[in-house]
């Protein structure tokens, strides 16, 4: 049985690690050629903030400082996030079908070892999420391989209207720890 995480609903001004924000746009590319411009972006229905909370806090303090700080030393260039997918779409491998990407179907049968490992968060790439009943979120999965970055001020402004909740501290630390372990893994030859 999957563990249920805890989610805080209080929305504060600054972006925090563990924030869940809906409808976040990721700019795939912006290209200009011969006077023609094309911008491609992907709308992710739900993301989680992964950047370290102390970095986000310092960035916010430096940006909002009055009088302004003498340097911009602690300001961030971007905020790291990861998409969250509906686990039912994920099991089918169709969670990115609308953007033309087919993923490998994942073992859905709960008695199978691979599914048990997934639900127990023992597969490094994925983090399974089950939310409490009072949180309007379906059972989901974070795919750490799909992390991307967004503009700091963009996400701060978006949070005012699109904040869904914040994964509470213990659970967000678990996610952060697993994400860093995934990123720092060492690929060995087959």
């Amino acid at each position: 049985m999957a563990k249920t995480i805890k989610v805080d609903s209080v929305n504060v001004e600054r972006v925090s690690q563990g924030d869940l924000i809906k409808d976040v746009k990721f700019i795939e590319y912006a290209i200009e050629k011969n006077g023609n411009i094309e911008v491609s972006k992907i709308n992710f229905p739900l993301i989680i903030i992964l950047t370290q909370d102390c970095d986000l806090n310092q960035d916010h303090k430096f940006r909002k400082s009055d009088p302004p700080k003498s340097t911009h030393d602690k300001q961030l260039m971007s905020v790291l996030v990861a998409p969250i997918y509906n686990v039912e779409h994920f099991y089918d491998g169709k969670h990115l079908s609308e953007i033309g990407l087919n993923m490998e179907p994942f073992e859905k049968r709960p008695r199978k070892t691979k599914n048990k490992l997934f639900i127990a968060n023992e597969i490094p790439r994925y983090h399974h999420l089950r939310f409490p009943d009072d949180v309007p979120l379906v059972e989901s999965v974070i795919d750490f391989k799909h992390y991307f970055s967004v503009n700091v001020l963009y996400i701060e402004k978006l949070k005012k209207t699109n904040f869904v909740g914040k994964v509470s501290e213990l659970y967000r630390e678990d996610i952060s720890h697993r994400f860093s372990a995934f990123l720092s893994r060492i690929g060995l030859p087959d």
Partner: protein
Amino acid sequence: MSQDKIFSDEYSGPENKTAASKHVSKHATLEIDEKKYGLNKPQRIILSGKLKHGEDN
């Protein structure tokens, strides 16, 4: 222009009338009806347009 101004509520768009953003047209837009978050899949939106040059160019 600073990013603070671009992302502020008061920002109404590029001051230069020749800027491309004045002339973009949306090929695809999405209206996502959500009753429960996370039910939808990621979607791609492509904006495109042509740069129009003003008299001063």
